[in-house]
């Protein structure tokens, strides 16, 4: 953020001044930060500790932590074919949704960055799925693709297509595909927002200069737009991987992991282990596996943004 760089030297100056006024600088700053930190450590930090502990101990159905069991919970999880299947499906789910989201979002962002009549309306509609609860989106789509009463089959039949009572969610492959498409639909708004932010940061003068040099617009797209948009695409990619990997309501509400666990992903697996089967140790081990993967993604993200920040400072 340019604002921070500009105020940096002044901050040092005013820190001196405020101590002259009798306000303890760093200590006072820590007091201001304390409530935020306390809330976060209590509500996020403690459960992390608790889940780590449960994953390493033998836990009863009612949640009593018994003796230390080492990696037995992990061994049990990795021996469970449903866990392995859910892990495989998580990879398919994440890769397909994230790749699909970027493929759809880049052209949409480029179009919305053009100056055309009704752009504000188009932008509002594109961002609309972001405003709605994923749970409600999932409920509505579950009805849309309902075989007997859904509006999709109603529309397709009205167009003369043979989908009178086609049960879209009965077949696991089709159900998973539909869930992936809905995953893409709800991820596009956030991604377009990040990309639009990137596009508006490209100075118009670059395009004018390249037009004066006689470059065609496709050339300026490859040599100006894409390279300058690339860091934003990386950020969108990593954040989407994190969000999609974590995404629960769409699959939970539309198919509940079924039929026969063939649309389960790790997060629905963990939830079922804990709240349907009462296998808390198993659930905790699954959570830890997810947590470790998320941490890797988070570090990649920090690395990317830091590299980007350093480049901006040059």
């Amino acid at each position: 953020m340019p604002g921070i760089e500009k105020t940096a030297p002044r901050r040092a100056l005013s820190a001196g001044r405020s101590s002259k006024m009798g306000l303890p600088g760093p200590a006072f700053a820590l007091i201001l930060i304390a409530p935020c930190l306390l809330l976060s450590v209590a509500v996020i930090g403690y459960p992390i500790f608790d889940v780590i502990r449960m994953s390493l101990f033998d836990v009863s159905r009612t949640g009593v932590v018994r003796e230390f069991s080492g990696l037995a919970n992990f061994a049990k999880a990795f021996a469970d074919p449903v866990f392995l299947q859910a892990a495989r499906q998580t990879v398919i789910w994440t890769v397909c949704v994230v790749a699909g989201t970027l493929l759809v979002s880049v052209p949409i962002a480029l179009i919305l960055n053009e100056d055309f009549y009704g752009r504000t309306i188009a932008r509002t509609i594109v961002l609309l799925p972001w405003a709605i609860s994923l749970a409600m989106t999932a409920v509505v789509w579950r009805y849309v693709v309902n075989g007997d009463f859904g509006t999709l089959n109603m529309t397709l039949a009205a167009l003369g297509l043979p989908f009178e009572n086609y049960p879209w969610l009965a077949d696991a492959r089709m159900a998973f595909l539909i869930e992936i498409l809905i995953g893409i639909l709800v991820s596009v708004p956030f991604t377009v927002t990040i990309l639009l932010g990137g596009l508006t940061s490209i100075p118009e003068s670059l395009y004018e200069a390249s037009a004066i040099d006689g470059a065609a617009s496709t050339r300026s797209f490859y040599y100006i737009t894409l390279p300058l948009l690339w860091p934003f695409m990386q950020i969108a990619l990593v954040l989407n991987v994190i969000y999609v990997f974590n995404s629960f309501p769409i699959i939970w509400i539309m198919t509940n992991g079924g039929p026969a666990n063939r649309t389960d992903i790790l997060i629905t697996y963990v939830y079922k282990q804990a709240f349907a089967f009462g296998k808390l140790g198993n659930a905790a081990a699954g959570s830890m596996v997810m947590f470790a993967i998320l941490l890797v993604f988070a570090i990649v993200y920090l690395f990317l943004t830091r590299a980007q920040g350093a480049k901006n400072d040059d």
Partner: protein
Amino acid sequence: MTKAKKSLVCWALLSPFLLVVLFPYATMLSTSLKQKDEIFTFHRTWLPRELYLGNFAELIFEKGFGRALANSLAISVGATVLSLAVAIPAAYALTRMRVPGKGALTNYLLITQMISPIVLIVGLFRMFAYFGLVNSLLSVIIAHSAFFMAFAVWMLQSYFATIPKDLEEAAWIDGAGRFSAFIRVFLPLCLPGIVVTAIFTFVNSWNEYAMSLTLLRQVTQQTAPVQIAFLTGTLYQIEWHLIMAATLLASVPVAIVFASIQRYLIGGMALGGVK
């Protein structure tokens, strides 16, 4: 290419995606205005027979959906107030003061934002159970605040950094204390940023599903999204006309509010995301 022609091309290219976005809204609207017999029939149409509003009345007066909306409202307002109450001082300190360990703190907040609550849901549930807060709206308010606060700090920081320091310093020189300069000079200037952050937090809390589902286990405490999903699972014949009316009620007001702040998100999100 003239602007009119270009507009036509742009709309044409966007239309497949816009159609998919609007399809569920058309479904909600059409279905919620239909009567039960119009849905469970062979000859279904998009247009309802008449503008029938009975589903909304039945939902509110007989199905207790009004209570779900009230629960959602209480939780969202509570979570917005609590997360702003802790995020504003923190963001102020982070942009205006020398904070020891600032880098580590920012990274920690960022990482907490990337952990889905569901990964920790077992631990979260046990913790609130220990304090006897399961089945209390307070547990969801606290949980939402903790998970949405990092983003609020992030957004507020980027707004706070745009406010020139000179104004506050002028107030200090005029004899105002740091606190009264903060209240009288700083806060009014960042009010737009605070409002956008508040709305964003409110919408996130309103829409949240997994934590509300897990921590509130009685039907009377369900939030709107949880109750809507619950209605699809319990009945032999799912009452889609009521469910679509419920999703319409619970989503359209929020969508309108969200649409009103979307242009502020485009600048702020990109800045926050890259830095």
